């Protein structure tokens, strides 16, 4: 099929990652929220960065990876 699936995966996870990073940064001072749930770790910020890196990696793969997709 003509659509390289790495594009939608890349765009979506970059977007969601960005969303989490922004939300994590905005709520960074809300210590109560994170201590009640995620053991005091701002997982939104950290995991947002992970998703962003994954998403951008997929986009780079789609752009420069050519015909041969990476084996996961």
């Amino acid at each position: 099929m003509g659509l390289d699936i790495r594009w939608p995966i890349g765009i979506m996870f970059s977007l969601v990652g960005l969303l989490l990073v922004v939300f994590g940064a905005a709520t960074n001072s809300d210590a109560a929220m994170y201590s009640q749930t995620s053991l005091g770790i701002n997982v939104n910020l950290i995991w947002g960065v992970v998703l962003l890196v994954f998403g951008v990696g997929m986009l780079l793969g789609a752009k420069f990876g050519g015909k041969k997709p990476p084996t996961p």
Partner: protein
Amino acid sequence: MQPIHLAWVDYAILLAYTGFVIGIGFALRGYMKTSSDFLTSGRSIPAWVTGLAFMAANLGALELVGMAGSGAKYGIATAHFYWVGAIPAMVFLAVFMMPFYYGSKARSVPEYLKLRFDERVRCLNSLSFAVMTVFASGISMNALAKLLHLLLGWNYDASLWICSAVVLVYVLKGGLTSAIYTEVLQFFMIVLGFAPVVFLGFKDMGGWDAIKSKLVLVAQNPAALSLNDKTFQPDAWTSAWKPLMGGPAANPMGVDIFAIVFGLGFVLSFGYWCTNFLVVQRAMAAKDMTAARRTPLIAAVPKMVFPVLVILPGIIAIALASTPDKNYRLPPPALSSGQYSAGLADLKSGQPGDADRVTAKVSQDIGLKMDKAKMASLLADIPARHLTDDQIKDRLQNAVAENDYDGIILSLVKKYCPPGLLGLALTALLASFMSGMAGNVTAFNTVWTYDLYQAYLAPNKPDRHYFVMGQAITVVGIVLSIACAYFAHKYSNAMDVVQLVFSFVNAPLFATFLLAMFWARTTGTGAFIGLLGGIITSGLVHGSTLAEGKGGWLGLHLYEFPSSMAQNFWLASFAFTACFLLTLFISLATKRTKTDEELKGLVYSLTPKLADGDQPWILRPAVMGSILLLGCVILNVIFW
């Protein structure tokens, strides 16, 4: 259960995902020109994509939710469903069976049966498969709508129709390709959505050794968590094989080693992974033979490590529940308003000194076991502290001494996810429900269009006709799924019977395929009667044995199995053996109807061997398969 309140960021993630799957459908719309593009992806997809879709098609939400529950109930032995019950079969499919499925140019598994045997075998297989997919997608959608209703307080009907509509739009626009792409998206969603939850739980418990030390306590007194009435050796939850050695009484699954190795590891596992068109279809959509054979092998890599993501949460949950200061309990089944008012009436009419009698009465009226100590203190507190109805409701709910195993994964999500991450985890769950429906619907529309409609109702029409039929039947498939979802919602007992019947139908299938592909002498009559005989055998075995009060509907109780799981594994073993022997003997007694020339590409001994010599040695299916099996053995030894 209190509905969870979602923040704007959670909705944003949910909407982004939904937008993307619909977008993928629209982006693929232009490539759908023939029925083959729509129903079989025109055999054009690279191996890593079909591989992940192969894995994800099986990783429906029910699997996700169920495996965490089993992890709690049975501990590490649950991994047998992966390391014994999946990887060997996936390797076998890649190395030995894929060449016939892909090489025969069959467009579906039933069509392979037609090429190999005759119309009778195809008809039996395609009819039962078509009905099964519709029910499976209905069951999945019912679970989704119920979950959204319980968890988020959304309306059941609206949830069901909206989610189905989303699936309809992207499958209708992009066909199988859309479903496969969405499955890959869902695969990454699940990995990336659940990994942080598992990590947080793991960290909270203080690592693997701390969890193990808790599991030792659980094994010696599983009744404390309402897991099991019996007591076991300390390693019953932390070893995969040792508890099986002691026989059914020594492990919480209640199974023996033969049932696991032959019943699960051979019959059920090979029957599912090597013959179920839902998963095999993914590999058949690959762009060439090499990609098709690599598909199950690529899928096996994440499959092997997935227990960390799906079983470990259940194990973490029981470790948490047996650590008092973590303030966590395994979720009890949610009381309906009817159950609650029955319980409340019993409590109000009871006297504080009467705890035993009241507990028994409440248990009987609401149909669940109740914790005596909690009921006694609740009974005493009602007059003493003037509890409000809401407080009584909470405490009554808490006094239920049973577990809702399906709720475990969600209870962990609720415990560890702040807004943001919560949206991600819920989206992952929603994604797996929806792609479960899409997977079933795309398998259903192919089998209907090619194996039933084109074969029997309207042969020899132009391709355009089948393309339109493929799209029309997609709509019908979704509508039927919705109907089945309502049926499952209303008559859950009847649904159990339906699923039971399908387990009879599926149990003997692998014997038919094994003989079909590896013994040229197998005849159509042999295969057809063997398959029917196998199905009848599984019905008879179920009808004449008991397990956990189920079965024995023939009025015969020849044997009582220690658990339903053991009954299921043994039933499959009997069905397989019956089908195998019947097919064997009837084939010998009947004449072959297909010549060697006709069976070329369909039977092992009559097909030229594929030359893998042009591939780098490490990528040859046999080598990759051996490496995977070795990895599997190592994992089994580590968790011996």
